[in-house]
């Protein structure tokens, strides 16, 4: 795409300046580039360049290329034709009847184009000479931006993990435990239920009688309400409201309202 890059541009210019017989047209990026290079041989400020002389230089260059049977791209020939036309316009006295822009106007525009291209090349070089990111100055090495944290966001707590495991190992019976809130009784609920009742518990009573009505029919409900009721009993005993006893292993657990000290011997 850019054959120019293969050889340093300086050397091409030098060779042209030395008027060596090189007609490496492919080495130029089009007629404008060639014109700009040729204009350098005039060794004047681009703003004072003689377009007439440049046109002649160009035409001579093209002639030389032709004589060497070098195939020229169409746009080089178009430019040659246009410059020949421009040259005639510049040389002949202005024809008032002729239409279109004058030779001077055309020449001025070509000079502008050359100057603009030269300026662009100049600033391009300045731009590339600037300090560049990743070469002269640097960005943060350890970033903590979004992408990084988003990846670790697949999160799960140890609790989830353990509950997940428990869920598997207790698959069949676990479901009602978890989902059937109807079957769950908390110690608070049991306490609430027992507090008003214990005032009447003068005699030893099996705690199972404190279970909510009907809860003893369903095994799951019985288990939970028994546990809750037992826990509540312990709590009440701690508060000094009741006494608990169990005569033997697996024997019923009995409770009664706490008796005044010494008034009952059978505790």
């Amino acid at each position: 795409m850019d054959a120019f890059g293969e050889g340093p541009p300086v050397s091409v210019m030098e060779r042209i300046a030395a008027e060596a017989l090189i007609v490496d047209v492919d080495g130029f990026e089009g007629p404008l580039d060639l014109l700009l290079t040729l204009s350098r041989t005039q060794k004047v400020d681009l703003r004072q360049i003689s377009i007439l002389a440049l046109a002649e230089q160009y035409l001579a260059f093209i002639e030389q290329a032709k004589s060497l049977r070098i195939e020229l791209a169409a746009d080089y020939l178009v430019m040659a034709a246009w410059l020949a036309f421009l040259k005639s316009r510049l040389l002949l006295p202005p024809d008032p009847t002729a239409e279109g822009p004058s030779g001077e106007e055309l020449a001025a525009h070509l000079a502008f184009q050359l100057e603009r291209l030269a300026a662009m090349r100049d600033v391009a070089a300045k731009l590339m000479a600037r300090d560049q990111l990743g070469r002269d100055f640097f960005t943060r090495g350890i970033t903590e931006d979004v992408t990084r944290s988003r990846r670790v966001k697949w999160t799960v707590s140890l609790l989830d993990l353990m509950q997940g495991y428990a869920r598997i190992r207790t698959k069949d019976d676990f479901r009602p435990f978890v989902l059937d809130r109807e079957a769950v009784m908390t110690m608070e609920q049991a306490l609430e239920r027992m507090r008003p009742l214990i005032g009447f518990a003068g005699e030893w009573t099996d705690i199972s009688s404190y279970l909510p009505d009907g809860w003893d029919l369903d095994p799951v409900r019985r288990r939970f309400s028994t546990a809750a009721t037992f826990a509540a009993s312990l709590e009440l005993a701690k508060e000094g409201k009741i006494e608990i006893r169990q005569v033997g292993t697996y024997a019923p657990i009995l409770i009664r309202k706490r008796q005044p000290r010494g008034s009952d011997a059978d505790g």
Partner: protein
Amino acid sequence: MADPREQSLFEAPPMGEQERMVEAILFATAEPMTVVELVRRMPHGCDPAEALARLRKRYEGRGVNVTRVGDAWAIRTAPDLGFLMQKETVETRKLSRAAIETLAIIAYHQPVTRAEIEEIRGVSVSRGTIDQLIEMDWIGLGRRKMTPGRPVTFVVTQGFLDHFGLESARDLPGLKELRAAGLLDNRPPPGMAVLGQAGGDEVAEDVGQAELFGE
């Protein structure tokens, strides 16, 4: 500005300059830097340890701090500003139930084969679940099992232990402890004490409950 490398042939750059150098290096490198590495990078005669100490002081109380990472140094966000970094980590996605259960089985039974996981879960384990856990660096391949077909086994990784703050997979609480901690209820609503949190679970220890846990 003169290239500090040049002048370094004769004398070390002034300490202020060395501080700037350490600052720039710590900022731009992808890894924390040891003092030895700093010495290697900086002009001859520099004293990065001293420059580091000054830099560290300079960043005290700032939005970022010079912090020690092992025997190396890095610039890190001040801990109290961490919330600013997490702001955009909105994409909190919970692991799927399948992934959690698979992970749990691997953690509790490692080394475990895929067939064993499936047997325990009672359903097949999708390739994607295993892949996801591997990609998260929570599970890895263990040694092959000495059974017909020599199937690969899965084990949990150091990354897994780190994430959950465990020293080893043996530290995972057993079923008994799970129950004692009241963890067998899926998600106890706040303020609602569930069976097992009070002394009540002594009763729950009865036959029925024991069956539940297959003990």
